[in-house]
């Protein structure tokens, strides 16, 4: 398991890996928003928490695309399936590595990008907290989606279609908390819901993903 984790980290850090790319995508989406909705700063401030959450979500989703597909194509997944590691563990570890290489940088970058969108001064803390609580669920749900679509060429888009509806509760609570933070309201309730969802997802989703992967390898 540890070996797999570090291998995934190493692969992400080497050329062509995803480290930093998710971040850059996040940056660009956030930068494109003023171009598309216009530069009025009050408008931007109002939509800032939502845009940051949505941007983080899309960046996460995009980098999930090839989480398992690469290993499938070069046969490594078959080999892992005949190894002593349980497939549930494989998926969970891969989702963990994905979070470290994508989710974590997104969390750290979000406040900086908040400045670009005129995020209200009080909103930064809550934004970061909500992202820290929410992004692990995004990675894990995404790993389930990746496991579902692993055998399909050009599965990336299908994966988005399957995964995005599953992201809805996380997004709603996360963005709501960030918005309340920015407006100076109390964000405790949505944050609690968010934490609950993440915990449940982390506890149960690896089993669903493992089962799906086993079917796909068959």
């Amino acid at each position, binding site marked *: 398991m540890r070996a797999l984790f570090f291998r995934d980290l190493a692969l992400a850090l080497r050329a062509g890996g995803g480290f930093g790319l998710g971040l850059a995508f996040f940056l660009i989406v956030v930068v494109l928003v003023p171009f598309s909705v216009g530069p009025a700063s009050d408008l931007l401030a109002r939509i800032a928490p939502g845009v940051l959450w949505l941007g983080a979500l899309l960046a996460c989703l995009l980098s999930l695309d090839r989480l398992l597909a690469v290993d499938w194509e070069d046969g490594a997944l078959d080999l892992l399936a005949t190894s002593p590691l349980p497939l549930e563990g494989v998926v969970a570890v891969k989702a963990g590595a994905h979070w470290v290489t994508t989710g974590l940088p997104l969390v750290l970058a979000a406040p900086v990008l908040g400045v670009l969108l005129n995020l209200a001064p009080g909103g930064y803390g809550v934004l970061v907290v909500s992202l820290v609580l929410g992004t692990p669920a995004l990675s894990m749900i995404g790993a389930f989606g990746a496991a579902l679509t692993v055998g399909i060429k050009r599965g990336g888009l299908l994966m988005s*279609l*399957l995964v*995005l*509806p599953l992201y*809805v509760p996380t997004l709603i609570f996360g963005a709501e908390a960030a918005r309340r933070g920015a407006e100076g309201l109390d964000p405790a309730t949505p944050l609690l819901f968010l934490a609950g969802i993440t915990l449940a997802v982390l506890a149960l989703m690896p089993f669903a993903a493992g089962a*799906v992967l086993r*079917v*796909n390898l068959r």
Partner: protein
Amino acid sequence: MSLWEYANPVKFLGLSERILPWLWGLSAACLAIGLIWGFFFTPDDFRQGSTVKIIYLHVPAALMAINAWFMMLVASLIWIIRRHHVSALAARAAAPVGIVMTLIALFTGAIWGQPMWGTWWAWDPRLTSFLILFLFYLGYVALWEAIEDPDTAADLTSILCLVGTVFAVLSRYAVNFWNQGLHQGASLSLDKEENVADVFYQPLLFCIAGFVLLFFALVLYRTGTEIRVRRTRALMARENAVA
């Protein structure tokens, strides 16, 4: 003789061929009665005018859209636990019907919303959850279409259906939390006081019954088609193996 005997595709086909004409007939009759009664023999609402009559399409379609998903959930569970091909195919057959029902509900709702709320669409929790349900349907059908091996596809889609149900329910609560809405509450409760007026109510029941029967007829019919597709496949495979 147990019910599971009809899990055999051939028996199932036989049974459905016997039931289907009745289902078609009954649903047509119920729909005809309900719609004609509702459209021509009920008074206009004093506030909504004749637009209220959209209710005869909107409510049954909305009900069936949700129940179709529920049926798919049950069928998926049966497939996962007992691995009866018919139930997997029935789930597959129900999905497009569910999508159509969802679309009917969405469109009639939009047409109704324009005079009532002055807008085609609002991000009301009820409507929003419905839109999310629509997305789940889309994903489910897309996954079926994308996978070639039918058993693999059945396994994957049924797990997706289970996980999707959990998240759909979660989304429903999340959406409620996120926005309070404009839409009607449940008006078909047993508590008579809260019901829509009787004049509207009775034809509505006919329409609902008609939609339920129509749904079952469509699902049976489509399941039969799916079974025949699989049979053709099996025959072709046998031919290839002999060649």
